Structure formats: structure tokens, C-alpha cells
């Protein structure tokens, strides 16, 4: 059977997220508990987590998490890394034997920073340089796959139920101010570790539940801007779109939601002049990056998180608040299980972004 | 009141209105049966000249000379529609003498005939209008 990248795979999912506005560092336990409650929304073919603020001691270095089929690809990849980066620290990512997790690849973690010489001759800004290197590895080096490449953050994913994945990566031993989790329900794949979610590029990580109908329109457009959609998953293309609009074009998250989940014309027409012009401009200029069809996503980024539903809200998504902690999940139960008495619970409108950032900054 | 109006700008001079009129007033169901081997005397009649054509039928005047002139009382107005009681009519043709539009004509039965907006045949609504291929004849309020 074909795996991700060779074929497009629709899937249903469960997502969950926890964010501490004060930057309080939360252990991985609660997010595991939360995603586990939605066990039935995944089918054991993929689970994963993204955590922000977990590598304070290495916060100035890019943390690469890489899967290897075997030692040859590892060797080839590390040579590539050495050619382009100064590797500060490298280690196997600590895991625990778990019955639910099998066919484990080699999983390594590298804290790196670009070699100044390479960077300057590339004439790219640092992030672009890093991003391109990641794409290079993922497309050119057979058997090596970078699944996390941001600073002071990390993605942990595998084939299996999310709670097992959490167990496997010993996430209770990590602490971060922001956690997102994903349980996957692909309809036609054996599941591949790289294909599990979250999907991440640099600091951006995306967990997504849905199947977007605009996929190929989005894909063919974003690929014009130097991205390569190797996995053919919604999450991948959404991540690239957000990276493109935010990092390369310079749109704010609110503006980005005005592109990917743009208001309907009938809504725009009723807006006050200035708003109207803004949203008309966004829809017109970035028309091909509009995302249609059902999706609910959690976008993690440095110091913040954004939750967004498609404009028709064809997927469930609930937000809860308790003191300075924000919870977001596909189902309310996944929030209640970790915080029974919330100050506030609501279901955001389709296309209405929920953006939360650190007020105190990461501690 | 809705009346039949003709717009010569769009009249093609195809004469179909005349045939649809004759058909409507034959009260036959099949046009071929009604008009085969018949020389028609329609109540709407085309005037044609060099590239100008228009059909003329009763204008159903608000203040009709034909009705006033009728010596028998056969012509009368019913909710705006001027109708002829052919049973009363003796065919003196005073109405033809009076009508400024030449819209009343002798019938085949020695009396007169005129457009009654198809109110008195099986069609019920002006059939010339329905038959006009170019909307040159319309049935509307003005």
C-alpha cells in the first residue's frame, strides 16, 4: 500500500491543546489525559504532540527531531547536517517500550545553528535557510525525515494511539507552556511515523482535524512559493500556508484567518468601509490560499497558539478558560477531564480565530 | 386595463398573428384542421410597407365611437372589452364607418367581427400575442 506522499489520505481526527498565558510550564500528563478521552476519534494509526517551552536551556538553537529508517540514512543525513550546521548537541530521544507502539525507527534529536559561512553564501535569511535544509533532507535523503525543526519546541509523534505515543515518548517528563495533541483516524493507510501529526516547520506546528476540499488548489499554489508538499496531507499544506503568509508575506494571524477562512462576500459586504476593503483585499490577493471544506486546526508558534475552524464550522471545536490557562479540544469532555470547573466555555464561530499569546512571555 | 399593443419596431410582418387569431376564433383544437384550405379573415390585420410592418386590432377605446354609432346596440363594453353581439348585429357596418383604426371588419356571416381579446373563444387570452415570434405584440397595462 502507498504511504503518505505517494497518495492523498483523508482522515478524521481528534485534537486538543493547552496553553498557559502566564507561561507556567505544564507537564505532558494532562494533555495525554485530554487526548486519551477522545480515544474513539482515532484508530491507532497515528498520534502526536507538540510542546513549546520545553528546551529552555537550548532555546537559541533549532531542535531537529529526525526519524531514520536505518544507519545509512542517519549517516547521510548527519553528514548533510554537519555541512550546513554547527551541531551543539545530539542524542537519541528518550523513549519507553510500549506495547501499543511497534516498528520503531531511529529517533534522534539535534540542537543546531546554521554555519555562518553557509548562511551568508546562501543569501537567505536564517529561517529560510533552515527551512530549505529541512525540505532538502525530507525530499532528497531517502529514509531520513525531519519532523520537528523549531526553537525551544518539539514535536513527538508515532503510529499508535496518542496516549500510547505520549507514554512512549515519556512526555510526563517534559514541561512546556503550550501543548497540542493529535489522534488520527486515516481511512486508507498503514500509517507512517512521519505521516502522524502534528506537522511542523520551524516554530510552526499544526494539528488538524478535517479534510479540506481546496487541497489541490492550495497545494499547487503554495508549491509555487518554494514549498514541497511531500506528505500530501492537509496539515502539511496548512502549515506551509501559515508559514508563508506569516513568515514570508508578513500577515498577522488575524489577517491569515481572513485568508484561509475568509468571511463570505455577503458578510464582507456588510462590513464598515475600512474592514470591507481589508478583507476584500485579502480575499482577492490570496484567493488561491482560501481553505474550504471541514477543518479545525491548532497552530502552535513561538509564544502563542491559534485555533481556527473552517468558515462553515464543519468540524467541532470547543474552547475553555480557567484563570490564565486556555483549553481547546474537539470535544468538551476532553477539556472537562483535566479542568472540571472552567470559568468559561464556548464554541468559536466558523472562521473566527482564537489567538492566545504569552503575556508574561515564556519563563 | 391590459390591452394588446403592437410595436412596429419588432414586427416582422410574418402574418402569424393573423393565423393565430383565425385559429383562436375557429375554436378548433388543431390549427391545421382549423385553417387547412381556408382563406382566413382574422380580427387582427397586418399593415405592411417598405420594411415597416405592424398589426392592427381593436384598441378597445375608452370612449368608443363604434359602440356609440352602433344602430342595434350589438356593440357594447364589458369591463373595458368591446364585444359584438353577432346575434343582434344586422351588418349595417356603421361601426366600420366609425372606427378610426379600421379594426372592425365584415365577418363571413354578413355581420361584423372584431378583436375581443380572445375573451369569447377557447383560448381565453390574446392568442396573437402568444403567437408573435418577436414580442412585437404584447398584452399589457399602459
Amino acid at each position, binding site marked *: 500500500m502507498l504511504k503518505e506522499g505517494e497518495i492523498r489520505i483523508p482522515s478524521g481526527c481528534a485534537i486538543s491543546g493547552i496553553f498557559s498565558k502566564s507561561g507556567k510550564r505544564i507537564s505532558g500528563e494532562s494533555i495525554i489525559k485530554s487526548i486519551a478521552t477522545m480515544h474513539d476519534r482515532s484508530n491507532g494509526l497515528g498520534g502526536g504532540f507538540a510542546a513549546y517551552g520545553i528546551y529552555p536551556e537550548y532555546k537559541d538553537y533549532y531542535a531537529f527531531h529526525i526519524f531514520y529508517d536505518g544507519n545509512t540514512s542517519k549517516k547521510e543525513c548527519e553528514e548533510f547536517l554537519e555541512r550546513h550546521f554547527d551541531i551543539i548537541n545530539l542524542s537519541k530521544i528518550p523513549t519507553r517500550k510500549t506495547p501499543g507502539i511497534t516498528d520503531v525507527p531511529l529517533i534522534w534529536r539535534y540542537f543546531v545553528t546554521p554555519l555562518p559561512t553557509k548562511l551568508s553564501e546562501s543569501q537567505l535569511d536564517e529561517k529560510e535557510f533552515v527551512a530549505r535544509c529541512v525540505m532538502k533532507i525530507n525530499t532528497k535523503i531517502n529514509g531520513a525525515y525531519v519532523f520537528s525543526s523549531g526553537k525551544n519546541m518539539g514535536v513527538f509523534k508515532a503510529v499508535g494511539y496518542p496516549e500510547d505515543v505520549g507514554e512512549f515518548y515519556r512526555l510526563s517528563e517534559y514541561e512546556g507552556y503550550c501543548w497540542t495533541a493529535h489522534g488520527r483516524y486515516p481511512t486508507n493507510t498503514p500509517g507512517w511515523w512521519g505521516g502522524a501529526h502534528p506537522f511542523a516547520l520551524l516554530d510552526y506546528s499544526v494539528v488538524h482535524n478535517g479534510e479540506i476540499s481546496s*487541497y489541490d*488548489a492550495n497545494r499547487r499554489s503554495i508549491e*509555487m512559493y518554494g514549498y514541497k508538499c511531500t506528505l500530501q496531507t492537509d496539515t502539511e499544506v496548512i502549515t506551509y500556508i501559515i508559514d508563508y503568509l506569516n513568515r514570508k508575506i508578513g500577515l498577522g494571524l488575524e489577517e491569515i484567518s481572513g485568508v484561509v477562512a475568509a468571511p463570505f462576500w455577503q458578510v464582507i459586504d456588510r462590513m464598515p468601509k475600512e474592514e470591507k476593503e481589508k478583507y476584500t483585499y485579502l480575499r482577492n490577493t490570496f484567493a488561491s490560499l482560501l*481553505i474550504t471544506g471541514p477543518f479545525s486546526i491548532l497552530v502552535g508558534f513561538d509564544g502563542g497558539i491559534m485555533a481556527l475552524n473552517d*468558515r462553515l464550522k464543519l468540524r467541532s471545536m470547543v474552547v475553555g478558560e480557567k484563570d490564565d490557562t486556555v483549553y481547546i479540544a474537539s470535544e468538551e469532555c476532553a477539556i472537562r477531564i483535566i479542568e472540571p470547573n472552567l470559568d468559561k466555555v464556548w464554541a468559536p464561530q466558523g472562521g473566527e480565530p482564537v489567538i492566545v499569546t504569552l503575556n508574561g512571555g515564556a519563563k | 386595463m391590459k390591452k394588446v399593443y403592437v410595436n412596429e419596431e*419588432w414586427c416582422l410582418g410574418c402574418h*402569424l398573428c393573423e393565423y393565430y387569431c383565425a385559429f383562436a376564433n375557429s375554436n378548433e383544437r388543431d390549427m391545421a384542421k382549423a385553417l*387547412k384550405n381556408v382563406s382566413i379573415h382574422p380580427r387582427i390585420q397586418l399593415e405592411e410597407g417598405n420594411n415597416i410592418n405592424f398589426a392592427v386590432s381593436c384598441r378597445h377605446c375608452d370612449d368608443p365611437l363604434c359602440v356609440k354609432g352602433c344602430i342595434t346596440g350589438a356593440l357594447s363594453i364589458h369591463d373595458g372589452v368591446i364585444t359584438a353581439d353577432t346575434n343582434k348585429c344586422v351588418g349595417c357596418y356603421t361601426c366600420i364607418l366609425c372606427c378610426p383604426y379600421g379594426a372592425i371588419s365584415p365577418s363571413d356571416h354578413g355581420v361584423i367581427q372584431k378583436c375581443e381579446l380572445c375573451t369569447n373563444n377557447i383560448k381565453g387570452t390574446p392568442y396573437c400575442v402568444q403567437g408573435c415570434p418577436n414580442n412585437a405584440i404584447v398584452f399589457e397595462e399602459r
Partner: protein
Amino acid sequence: MGVNYLYPEYEVVRNMDRCINCRVCERQCANEVHSYDEERKIMCSDDALCVNCHRCVSLCPTRALKIVKSDHTFKENANWSGRSISEIYKQAESGGVLLSSMGNPNSFPVYFDKILINASQVTNPSIDPLREPMETKVFLGSKPNKIERDKDGKLVNNLSAGVELAMPIMFSAMSYGSISYNAHESLARAAQEAGILYNTGEGGLHKDFYQYGKHTIVQVASGRFGVHKDYLEAGAAIEIKMGQGAKPGIGGHLPGAKIVGDISKTRMVPEGSDAISPAPHHDIYSIEDLRQLVYSLKEATDYKKPVIVKIAAVHNVAAIASGIARSGADIIAIDGFRGGTGAAPTRIRDNVGIPIELALASVDQRLRDEGIRDNVSIVVGGSIRNSGDIVKAIALGADAVYIGTAALIALGCHLCRSCHSGKCNWGIATQKPELVKRLNPNIGYKRLINLVKAWNHEIKEMMGGMGINSIESLKGNRLMLRGVGLNEKELQILGIKHAGE
């Protein structure tokens, strides 16, 4: 010449039981097929004159008429078709170039008919356009690749001039001269009410129609007929016509007989003298010349109008399009080899150009490969026959489509393909007042609006089925298409999978 080798192509079949001698057939046939025999008191017809336009058939009040293809044949011959033989007879007799009208009628593959559209099942929901908003509004024009903000960080509108369409449909270029005043009025009024655009073609813009300027594309063709400042400023967009699908590589020729009255005024061509559009623009022998024309037109209208460059779909269309996308043009219009015409040499029409589906697919992909797809919008024409074709074209990568033949059919055209005779019985492709009169714009524009509104509704239904609720998410969304009975090469060019994959 002595013997006439040509046997009538059609036979007029008259049901004598139903014919009532109303003579409408006689009055309505500009080819004088029908006549009334006073002695025998019956209608007669001369088959040889019939072009099978169905005017008489449609108007016959008793349905007494039908036109059938003559079953008179030549001896069976798989190679020498009756058509080939007859054409040789014609040329042997006339010594002239064969003329034809409307699009290529030959049996080349129609790729639209070998492409199927997707729909949602289970894993994501289809959307009901009657219950949910379903958006088909389209902006045409080039998109900036960076944003600008003012000092307080507000986004600045840095879009260059474009056009907005209520639906991804426009009426393609048909000149006043090739079609009648009433046909133009119908198109203009329909475009205005439907919120789309129509195209003047190369015949200039009649003063009566300046009022529809906001919905008008003014064309600049190699003959430059009727082109002046007011004309350029009147339109919502300017189209440079480099080529036409029906006759790539050759110009146009409107015989002096048709240059009369308003046509001569509108075209700025003296009455009675032929209006000849040269094959090329004589100021454009190369791509950089095109760039100059694009910018001189923009200068002339101080950058307030988007410029469209229309080309015929020819073999290296992708490379040409790439050049145009870098020429400052805002929109590329591509006309497929089945595109219609008022008159073209038969051999050119039937043998030159390539199918629009393939041209579109390769152009869209090429522009993406070069990262310049956003520089231009792509509009395709050349036999868009229904809303299915439109959905497929957009999914292949078009921003919008041009419809010409379909629009004329809505106006009553029966595709008899005799436009070049100038005796269009339906009042479309003629300038004879008594024939032009037959097209009442009050009827015509309503029929056009009905057509595009119906198509727009069907487009929405199909989008809804795919779970797409905005047309921009369909554009270039080739995963929504599958091919049937296409070979690897065709699939590869179209950039789609085969059904079942």
C-alpha cells in the same frame, strides 16, 4: 459552368396535411427556399438553397416542416468522404478558398468529455448551495507578491487594476459587423444585469453602448478598427487580440458590403471599403513589442484598466503564455481550436490550433512552475458548451471562461454555420435591417441572463458536491478531476489522475 456537381445537402420535408399556406416560411427565409405556387395553391421549396437554419421550422405554426439531411450519397469510401468530394467540386468550380463559419465541426477528441468531476462522500460533507452561501465571484487581474503597510501598519491596497465578475463567465469577442446591433445590445445588457463582461471584438464600440462601459471589454486588434482614446476609456478592460482559435495566424476580412452606416462610423472605416485585419499586428513582431503595446495602452488609460492579451491555442502556447505573463499583461485569454468565427478559411479553421483543455493545462502548470501564475489571470474559450465544461476548465486552472457560440445559441443561433453569407435568418450574423430586426434584444438579453444564471447555479451545485463553497478553491484543484479513456501522455499534460486511481 455546365453541370452542377453539387447535390443539395438538406431536404425540406413539408407535411402537406398540416401546411396551411400561411407562407411564414416563405416570408422568413432570407435564402428564398420557400415559395407559393399560386396555381396549385401549395407551398414549394428549393432544397438547394436551404442552409438548415431552422427558422422556418421554428416559426411554422402547424409544425408542418422539418429539414433532413439528404440520404443521397457517393459510393461508399472510407477515405474520400462526401464532404471532401463536394468541397473539391466547389473549388473546381469557383477556384476560390473555401469559407466557413463558427467552430471546427470535425470529430477531434473533446477532452472535457473525457474528464469527470469528484464529489464528497462520508469523510467530508457536500454543501447544499440552497442552504449555505456558495461563492462564484471572481477577480481577474495580476496579484502582488508582497504586501505593503502604511505607517500605522494598515494594509495598503497595492493591487493593480482588475475586474470583478459575479460569476466566472464572460461573453467573448464578437465584433459589431460580424454580429448585429441587436445581438450586441443583447450581450451588453445581459452582461450588465448578470454582473459580468462582454467584449466588443475588433469592430469598435457603437456610441449607444458606451453606457454599458463598466461591463465592456474593448478590443484592440491588428486592424485597430474603431480604436481611439474615448473607446479605450469606455471599457472596464482592454483586450489585445493577437489571435483567434478559429483562425490562428491569419487576419480578418469584413467585406465592404457589410461596412455600411453605423458600422463604418463605429469601425472608422469608409463606407463600402473592406475592413481587413492584418494577420499579425504590424507593430508586434516579437514579445518585447507586445510589452510596449501593453504599456502604451496602460499609459493611455493611466493604469486604470487591466490589459488582456488574447491568443489562439497553438503548439507552444505555454511558452508564449509565459512570455505574456511577464509582459505586464494582467489577463491571458486563450482561445481553443474549436472557437467560433464569423468567417474563416475552412482549411485553417479545421486544421490549425490545439484543444483548449490541453492548452489550458499546460499553460497553468508552466506558469506555476515558473512561479508567475499570480502575475496573470487565465481566461479560456473555444467551445465552452455547458457548466460542466466551466467547472472542469476552472479545476484545470482557469480563472474564468469566455463563451461566444453558446451565447449566440442562446440568442437563437442554430449553428447552420452560414454566418459568412450575411443572411442570418435569426438576425444575429447579419446587417440587413429586416433580418437584424428579428432579434429583439428585449427577448435576447433575458435569454442570455437565463443561460448564465442557470449555469452559475449548476456550477454551485457541482462545487457543493465537492464540498467547495468558493470558486477560488476550485481553481487549479485538479484532484477534483479524473480522466476516462485517456492515455498516460494526455493525463500527464492535463495533470490529472485516471478514474479509479
